[in-house]
C-alpha cells in the first residue's frame, strides 16, 4: 500500500501545473478563457494558466490570497470590481495599443473591457405565451407566475439593471413583476433553468450571451432586447499591481484585445469591446442604453429591491 500511495503522490506532483508564466483568474464563460489562453500561448509561446469560477469565487480567492497574490490578470463579470480594485490601488495602469477603438466608457485606469454582455428578456418560444417586447410586458396577466429574475445580489448584470431602473424612476415595473408572481431565483443559471424546461416562460434580466448560446445549442429560447432600453455589463480585464510577470500580463491583455482575441469573445456571443470588430449580433452601438446616473449606493439598491421582493 505504501508503494501505491507513493506512486499516487508522484502522479499528483507530475500533474501539478508547471510554474505558470501568466496566471489568469477569470469569471465565465469557461470556453472563452480556455480559447484565449490557448491562442495566447500559440501566438507568444508564453504559458497561461487559468482559474475559472464565478466572479464571486474569483474575488473570494483574491481576497483570501491578498497577503500573497497568485494571479497576474483578473477577468471579472462586474465593472464594479474594477472600480473597487482601482480605488484600493491594486491595479497596474496599462493602456493597451489594441484598445484604441474601445469606447471610453469601457476603459478606465488599470482596466479595460474584455467584452460586454447585454441584459435581455430570455423567453421560451414554446411556452405558449405571446412574445414579450419590453420589460413591462412581463407584468401582464399572460405571464402570471411565469417569470424568474436573477438575484441582484448574486448577478452583477441584474444589479446594474435594477440600479438603472431606480435611477430612471422605473421601479414600478419591478413592483408590477412582483405582483405578477415573479420569483427571484439565485444566479443567472438558476433563473434560466426553469425557463428552459418550461416551468417558467421568461427570465427578466437574462444575460444575452448565455441565452444566445443556449439557443445555438437548440434550446427553444430567444434573447429579446427590450424596446425601452437596457443596460450592458462590461467585463473588465485588469492586471494586478502585485504581479511578478507584468510584461507577460500586458501581452495577455494585448492578445485579448487583438482582432483574434476579440473574435474569440464574439464566438461565445459576447459583444466585443472594440467597435471595429464586426459580428452578426446586436452590438453596443445598436442598443438603446438606460443611464444609471443618479442611482443610489449599492446597499440602498439592494435594500430597495428587497423591499419590493421579499
Amino acid at each position: 500500500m505504501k508503494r501505491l500511495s507513493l506512486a499516487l503522490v508522484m502522479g499528483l506532483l507530475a500533474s501539478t501545473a508547471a510554474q505558470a508564466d501568466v496566471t489568469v483568474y477569470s469569471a465565465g464563460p469557461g470556453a472563452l478563457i480556455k480559447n484565449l489562453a490557448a491562442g495566447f500561448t500559440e501566438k507568444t509561446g508564453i504559458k497561461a494558466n487559468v482559474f475559472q469560477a464565478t466572479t464571486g469565487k474569483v474575488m473570494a480567492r483574491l481576497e483570501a490570497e491578498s497577503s500573497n497574490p497568485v494571479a497576474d490578470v483578473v477577468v471579472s463579470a462586474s465593472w464594479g470590481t474594477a472600480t473597487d480594485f482601482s480605488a484600493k490601488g491594486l491595479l497596474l495602469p496599462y493602456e493597451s495599443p489594441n484598445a484604441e477603438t474601445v469606447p471610453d466608457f469601457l476603459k478606465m485606469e488599470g482596466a479595460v473591457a474584455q467584452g460586454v454582455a447585454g441584459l435581455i428578456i430570455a423567453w421560451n418560444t414554446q411556452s405558449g405565451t405571446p412574445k414579450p417586447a419590453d420589460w413591462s410586458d412581463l407584468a401582464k396577466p399572460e405571464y402570471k407566475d411565469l417569470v424568474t429574475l436573477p438575484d441582484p445580489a448574486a448577478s452583477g448584470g441584474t444589479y446594474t439593471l435594477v440600479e438603472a431602473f431606480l435611477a430612471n424612476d422605473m421601479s414600478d415595473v419591478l413592483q408590477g413583476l412582483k405582483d405578477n408572481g415573479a420569483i427571484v431565483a439565485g444566479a443567472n443559471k438558476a433563473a434560466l433553468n426553469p425557463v428552459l424546461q418550461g416551468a417558467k416562460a421568461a427570465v427578466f434580466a437574462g444575460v444575452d450571451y448565455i441565452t444566445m448560446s443556449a439557443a445555438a445549442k437548440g434550446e427553444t429560447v430567444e434573447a429579446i432586447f427590450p424596446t425601452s432600453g437596457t443596460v450592458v455589463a462590461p467585463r473588465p480585464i485588469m492586471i494586478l499591481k502585485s504581479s511578478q510577470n507584468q510584461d507577460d500580463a500586458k501581452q495577455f491583455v494585448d492578445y485579448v484585445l487583438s482582432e483574434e482575441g476579440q473574435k474569440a469573445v464574439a464566438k461565445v456571443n459576447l459583444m466585443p469591446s472594440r467597435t471595429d470588430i464586426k459580428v452578426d449580433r446586436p452590438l453596443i452601438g445598436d442598443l438603446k442604453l438606460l443611464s444609471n446616473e443618479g442611482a443610489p449606493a449599492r446597499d440602498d439598491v439592494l435594500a430597495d429591491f428587497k423591499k419590493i421582493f421579499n
Partner: protein
Amino acid sequence: MAGGSVTTGAEGSVLLKWIATLGLLIVVAIPCLFIVVQAIFPEFGSGSFAAPFSLFFKTLSDPALFGMAGNTLLLGVGTVICAAVFAVPLAALRALYRVPGALIWDGLLLIPFMIPPYIAALGWIMTLQPRGYLEQVTGFNMASLLFSVSGIMLIMGLNTFSVVYFVLSRTFETIGARYSDVGRVFGAGQWRSFWRITFPLAMPGLAASLLLVFAMSIEEYGTPAALGRRIGFEVLVTGIENRISEWPIDLPGSATLSLVLVGMALVAFMVQRWLLNRRDYRIVGGKPQASDKRSLGVWAVPATLLFAFVALLATGLPILAILATALSRTISGGLKPSNMGLDNFRELLGAGSDGLIALGNSLMLGTTTALLAGLLGAITAYSVVKGRGRFRIVLDALSITPNSLPGVVVGVGIILAWNQPWLPITPYNTPFILLLAYVCILLPQPVRYATASLHQLGDNLESAARVSGAGPLRAFTRIVFPLILPSMVTAMILVFAVASRELVASLLVAPVGFQTIAVYIWQQFDQGSAGLGMAMAFCAVLITTLIPLALISLLRWLTRGSVAGLS
C-alpha cells in the same frame, strides 16, 4: 481495570502519537486557527492585525443572524424527523423479518451516499417543477411541495436517512437476537417485546445516528442553496457562502458566521459522543447472530412495496432525473424520443476531453485522500484510545472538529494558512492543497470507524504481541492495523466516494488550471450545459459505486473470507 493515572509499561508507539499530533495540527488545527484569526482581525487577509473585533460583533449583532440560525436549527430538526420516519420502520423490518430481496434494498439504499447532494437537488427540481419530468410523464407537478421548507427537509431526509437505516438495522438485529427473544420467553408478544426491549436498547444508536444526520444537515450547502433561495429560506451555510461568493466579499463576516455554525455542530457532536460513550459496545459491537428472523406472511407484499417506494424516492428518482437530463439533447426539448441521445456522454468521454481529465484527477485525489485519511484516522484513533490525560482530549477534540466545519470554511482557512508569503514551500496552488482540504473535511469518518473498531479489539491481542517481543510500532503495524483494516476499508470507501465529488472547497482551493469531477459539473451548469454536467454526475455516481464494490469483492477473494466484517 480501574482508571486513574496508571503507569503502563506498554504505551502506544510514541512515533505514532507524534504522527497523529503533527497530522492533526497540519490538517485541522492550522486552518481552524486562521479562521478564528480572520474573524477577529478583518484585515488579516492582507497581512494586517488592524481593528480587531471591529466586524466580529457587527456580524454577531446582525438581526439576520438570528433568522439564519433559527432556520438552520429548523432545517436540522426537520431533516432529523424526516430521516427517522423513513429509517426506523425500514430498519426494524429489515432486522427482525425476512424481507424479500433484503440485500438488493441494502444496495439500493447505499446509493444516496454516492449522489452529490447538489446534483440530487437539481434532479428533484427538474423532476417536480412545472413541466418537469413528472409532469411530462404523469401530467401533474409538485412544485408547491418542492419549493417549501418542508420540501427541503423531505429531500434532505431522503439524502441522509440511509445513515440511520444502516446503523439501526444492525443494532436492531443484534438486540433482537439476544435480548428481545428473552423478553418473548417471559411472555411479551412480538410487538411488545420490540417496544419494551429492542427499541429502548437501540435508543443510544438511534440518537447518535440522528445527531449525525443533524450535523450533516446543518452544514449541507447544495440542497438549501438550490431550493431555499427561491423561497427566501436562508440558513447559516448559505449565508456564509453568500458572503464569500457575492461581491463585495466579506471574509470576516463569513468566518464569524462559521464560528456560530461550528458552535452549533459542536454541541450536537458533544451530545452524540456523550451518548456513544454511555452506549454498551458489547451490544452494538456484537455480530448479528444467525437469528431466527420471522416470516412476514401476508405482509410480505406491503413490506416489499414500502422498501420499493422508499428506494424509488431516495435512489430511483434522482438517478432517473440525472440520466434523463444527461440523455436529453436540449432541456427545452423534453422527454421526447427525438430529443434523446448519447451526445453528452460522447462529448464527456471523448478522447482527451476535459471531462476525462477531471475524472482522472478526481479518482486519483479520491484514492489518495482515502488512503491518507484512513491511515491518519487509524493512527489518531489508536493514539486517542491508548492515550491518557489532556493530550488525549486535545487529539480527540481536534479529530472531530472538521465534522462541524462547512467545506467553504475549510477552503478559506486553508488559503489563509497556506498562502502566507513567508512560507518557504507550500502546497498551495498544487493538487496537494485539495488533498489537505479533503483529508481535513473527511478525517472524522475513519477516526469514528477506527475508534469503534479498536474498542472491540481485546486488549490482550496487542499485549500478546508486546510480550512476544514486538515493539510498540511493530505491534501496531503487525497486529492492530490489520485487525481494524476491514472496518477501515469501509470508512475509506466512504471517504473515497465523498472526496471524489467534493464541490464547495474544491471550487475555492483548486489549483489554477486543475479540474475535478465536481468543478467540471459545476462549470457545465454554469455554462448552461446541464446535460453534460448530469452526464458527468451519472458517471461519477457509477464509478464511486462500482470501484468500491469491485475493491471489496477483490479483498474478499484475496482473504478468502478469512477477514471478518468486510461488508
